[in-house]
């Protein structure tokens, strides 16, 4: 395992040098908050951030993505036959991704990459992406990664992990992809004992700063129908606006819709993020809607994350504890509170 130390200037220069080999997505200050954007010489990376407003899931799974294209009509023998859109699957790296957001890709992967089917776009984007994490020195009060199997310096799901040690960065290669990234990067020097000790202390102190941790272990033992019929859903759902803030900001929400768009004789099949909060999500052609009411949709979101996923994959909850939905839900529906209600029911 490679462990190298960079001064902060060296680090930025090193990244600049990597732009030939990778499209680098880095956190950039964009108005009031940070966003992952391609490092293109114009935008200055800013690694002094809590987390980006939108999770980096869109790098691998864009908000809207063209899947197929076609021509319409009768003249062409190829008309009405779908052709896969060409895509750029050249190497990318998300530099500065938080460990919770990296863990989220592992959670989502169980959906898009399974023994029966592999989503060709998600899988190829994911496989071509190197995840270079940045540990959280100062987790927020709304973070609860430690409750869902992660941590501020959690390594699973990352290819490399960066420790911010004040003046310097320590970077550890964790996988072959991460090692390849490090091998291409100029500058830095091998880490000494003192640096490694400092990183260890930082990891320990950061974990202790996580104050909220609703236990998620009890969820497995509950019965789906018991939780489904629990009396608290009406109260949880009352304020919900049925907007897509929670699902679109969430790094582990993967639901999508597929739409055809036509312009003249040419058309595209596009997939867009969708949300279980929207009534249209489950509306049948007949007009029947199994999740017609707000309370059913709110229940679906939490049951999916905290129970259905748990039962289906036997691999924890569908949540990486990033806290975005807690901070940005316009009506303050707090998943930690819902989780506690489910635990205690």
């Amino acid at each position, binding site marked *: 395992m490679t462990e190298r130390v960079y001064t902060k200037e060296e680090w930025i220069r090193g990244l600049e040098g990597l732009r030939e080999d990778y499209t680098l997505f880095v956190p950039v200050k964009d108005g*009031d908050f940070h966003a992952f954007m391609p490092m293109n010489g114009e935008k200055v990376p800013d690694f002094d951030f809590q987390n980006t407003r939108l999770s980096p899931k869109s790098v691998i799974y864009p908000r809207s993505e063209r899947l197929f294209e076609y021509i319409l009509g009768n003249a062409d023998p190829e008309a009405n036959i779908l052709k896969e859109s060409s895509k750029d699957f050249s190497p990318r790296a998300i530099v500065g991704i938080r460990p919770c957001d990296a863990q989220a890709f592992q959670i989502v992967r169980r959906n898009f990459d399974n023994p029966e089917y592999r989503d060709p776009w998600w899988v190829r984007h994911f496989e071509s992406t190197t995840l270079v994490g940045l540990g959280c020195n100062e987790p927020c009060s709304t973070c609860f990664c430690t409750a869902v199997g992660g941590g501020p310096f959690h390594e699973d799901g990352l290819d490399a992990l960066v420790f911010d040690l004040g003046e310097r960065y320590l970077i550890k290669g964790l996988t072959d992809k991460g090692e390849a990234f490090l091998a291409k990067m100029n500058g830095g020097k091998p880490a000494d004992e003192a640096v490694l000790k400092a990183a260890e202390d930082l990891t320990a102190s950061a974990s202790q700063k996580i104050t909220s941790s609703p236990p998620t272990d009890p969820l497995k033992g509950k019965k789906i129908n018991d939780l489904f019929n629990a009396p608290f859903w009406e109260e949880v759902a009352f*304020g919900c*606006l049925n*907007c897509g*803030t929670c699902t679109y900001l969430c790094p582990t929400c993967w639901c999508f819709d597929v739409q055809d768009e036509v312009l003249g004789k040419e058309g595209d099949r596009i997939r867009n993020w969708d949300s279980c909060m929207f009534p249209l999500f489950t509306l049948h052609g007949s007009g029947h809607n199994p999740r017609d009411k707000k309370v059913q949709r709110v229940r679906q979101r939490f049951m999916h994350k905290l129970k259905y996923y748990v039962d289906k994959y036997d691999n924890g909850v569908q949540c990486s504890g990033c806290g975005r939905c*807690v901070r940005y839900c316009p009506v303050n*529906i707090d998943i*930690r509170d819902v989780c506690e209600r489910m635990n205690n029911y």
Partner: protein
Amino acid sequence: MLRYTEKIQETAKRLLQEKRVDAFIGYGKGSVPMMNQPLMVSDPDRVDRLYWDNFCGLNLCNYLTKRTDKVGIVANGCNSRNIVTHIIENQIKRDQLYIVGIPCEGMIDHRAVMRAVKQKEILDIQQNGKTFVVKGADFEETFEKEKFLQSNCAVCIHRNPVIYDELLGDLVEEQTGVSPYQDVEKVEAMDPEKKQGFFTRLISRCIRCYACRNACPLCYCPTCFVDESRPQWVGKSSDPTDTLTFHFLRAYHCAGRCTDCGACERVCPMGISMRQFTKKLNKDCQELFSWEAGLTLDQRPPLDVYRPDDYNDFIK
């Protein structure tokens, strides 16, 4: 502010105990600073969850649409104007409502506060009359409320509720001499190309989560035009023209009905000022029809009625 909390709790308890209402809608204290939760209480013993402070910027009128029971609701100026609009548009009946009026001094803009503390995490906020104290892990700062009002509150001239069954405090003095449309005028002065750039940038971050639409009490259509598939009026992807169409038409559907309560901007996870659309329409309604939404139960909004003297200079 806390005196309002107590008064709201007392009032709600009384109304529920006397069975004047079946349920009472107000705000509860949120689990994170600056975020309050819309709350409905029907058990008189649980009114202690009701709360009021300067972060009650969501419009509770949303929760009244098509209710059939008798409800009590807290309402400041803009919320009360939306209640009026709701009654006019037959979304609820006046006699179903017991309106608990709250003279309002404006809500604090949570984004402005975050900016003032350089986006550091805020752990606690204490409000003391005209100032408030913000605490984080390694800082504590005091700010003047006046300077941190939501931009719609700063130019609000209807702080007192326009309709109520009971008032929880003395009426406040309405602001005078404010010029509410300075930002609109700035855009009006631009040439078309500049305007295009302005609005393209304005909505460039939009993720089409529809929080603005859903937080708006005016948006109660069973199926919104963006969700229709037969015919499909607008594409559903993140395409900028489709996104502009959504914002443009959403605003237009609010023409003559918008009370500038600011809920749309408050809830936007991406910090978009979509009031730049609705405010232009509010300004036009003001100038062309001398109309402000939700001030009276006796008159329908201007786009709802025909009058021989309606403005028609644009027809040649």
